[in-house]
């Protein structure tokens, strides 16, 4: 046994009793800092989740790519006919929409079982609670990367490259990552405490898929009513990344709405997390 391993065990948060007790705010903050210092663990856990799901299968994680490709092809054919759309115009939109929505949708449903699914680990070892959330986000980023292959192929086939406007998707995506982390903590904690929430989240999510312009284009809405769109957080969040990748610059109302909803989400999550962090272990 090497000597280095002896001292390498992780130090718990040492507390000095002569100091005032740590505030919930400080504890939540150190939770986040500790998760950041364990980023390699987050990354590995996220990747192993994907790898394990497809271990032993021929295509591995590329089953994700293939099933998305089939879905895009099938839905593209049907809906282009139904909506009387030009396939060259519709298919890039649809493939991008489905892939991006796939990220948001599976993130929300993973998040709602995030802490309950990690019950065994939560009860046997002290880990920062934001680590479990980061694992969910990274797992879904891996899925997204596999699915983006389909989008790239579709864009290449129809020669509809977004050009430099596409780079505008990057800050949007950065905001996605922050929101995803917040949402994973928020939903994970709420769903651990109230077991009725996951089914509610599931049905709301399905409703939002049809209410939000995912498979139908936003311009199908009558011009007088279009101002309503940014009221739907899913719309502005989705549009913020989708529009640039289709070569369009998102409107100010989209950014404003996405920004405001994100601030509200992060603030709500932070307040909740400060309040309940120490209780999550009792809830799972």
């Amino acid at each position: 046994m090497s000597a280095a391993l002896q001292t390498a065990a992780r130090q718990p948060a040492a507390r000095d009793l002569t100091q005032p007790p740590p505030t919930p705010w400080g504890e939540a903050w150190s939770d986040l800092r500790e998760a950041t210092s364990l980023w390699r663990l987050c990354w590995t856990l996220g990747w192993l989740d994907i790898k394990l799901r497809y271990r032993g299968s021929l295509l591995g994680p590329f089953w994700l790519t293939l099933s998305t490709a089939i879905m895009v092809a099938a839905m593209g054919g049907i809906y282009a006919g139904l909506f009387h759309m030009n396939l060259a115009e519709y298919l890039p939109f649809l493939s991008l929409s489905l892939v991006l929505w796939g990220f948001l949708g599976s993130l929300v449903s993973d998040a709602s079982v995030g802490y309950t699914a990690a019950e065994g680990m939560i009860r046997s070892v002290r880990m920062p609670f934001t680590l479990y959330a980061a694992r969910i986000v990274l797992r879904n980023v891996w899925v997204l990367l596999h699915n983006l292959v389909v989008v790239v192929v579709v864009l290449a086939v129809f020669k509809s490259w977004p050009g430099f406007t596409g780079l505008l998707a990057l800050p949007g995506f950065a905001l996605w990552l922050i929101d995803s982390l917040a949402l994973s903590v928020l939903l994970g904690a709420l769903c651990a405490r109230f077991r009725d929430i996951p089914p509610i989240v599931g049905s709301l999510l399905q409703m939002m898929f049809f209410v939000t312009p995912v498979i139908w284009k936003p311009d199908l809405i009558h011009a007088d009513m279009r101002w309503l769109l940014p009221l739907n957080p899913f719309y502005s969040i989705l549009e913020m990344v989708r529009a640039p990748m289709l070569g369009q610059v998102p409107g100010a109302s989209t950014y404003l709405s996405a920004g405001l909803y994100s601030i509200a989400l992060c603030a709500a999550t932070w307040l909740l997390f400060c309040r309940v962090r120490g209780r999550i272990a009792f809830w799972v």
Partner: protein
Amino acid sequence: MSAEIDVRGVSLDFPLYHGNARSLKRTVFSKVSSRIASDVRHRVVVEALRDVSFSLSSGDRLGLVGTNGAGKTTLLRTLAGIYEPLIGSLRVNGSLNALLDPQLGMNPDMTGRENIMLRGLYNGLDRAAIRRLEEDVCDFAELDDFIELPVRIYSSGMVVRLGFALATAIRPQVLLMDEWFMAGDATFMEKARARLEDMVRGAEILVLSSHQEHVILEWCTRVIWMDQGRVRADGPAAEIMDVYLGRAAA
């Protein structure tokens, strides 16, 4: 920094939210148990720990005894930082390893090597240290080429060896151990015992929960007798064990 543990007036309630607390409450109250009550918001809570205080410093070997459900494991989990008490204060200085769950972090679908790597990452080891951890564990568990295969296909003996090797590879200043670990002496080879003893001796503070008198007397210098979440007695190992066993036999 030398290891120390300081627990002052810690109380811990388990709220029971799930499994229909209301009807459970009715059932429970009809059977009257003093440890189950409802709090101000009429939730059912289990009083898992009540006003527990003790402190340990480097060199201390503490045994926890008590009947099932006396709060031994809850106390270990609280010391490990898994449950945070709302009442009282808790300080643990020094690196800590809690052997509470033999299956901790072992995923049967992952290969032996992946399991070892994950355990290293849990403990915040860097790449080089993980490599050393791998060598150490492979050596002890004698897995050879099986290290590249999923743990699912291992024989039960291999799983035990791997789990044991992993749990004992990272040596902390503060070692918290649940009884399962020392219980099955017979099934462990002599080599395993030597390794465990090495680890226990290496730790500055040991907190061990066990039902077995010989384990407690062999390893511990001090014993805390837990009863219904409270410290019933606290003192030198032999003395407390006599009182504890005398009462248990009566």
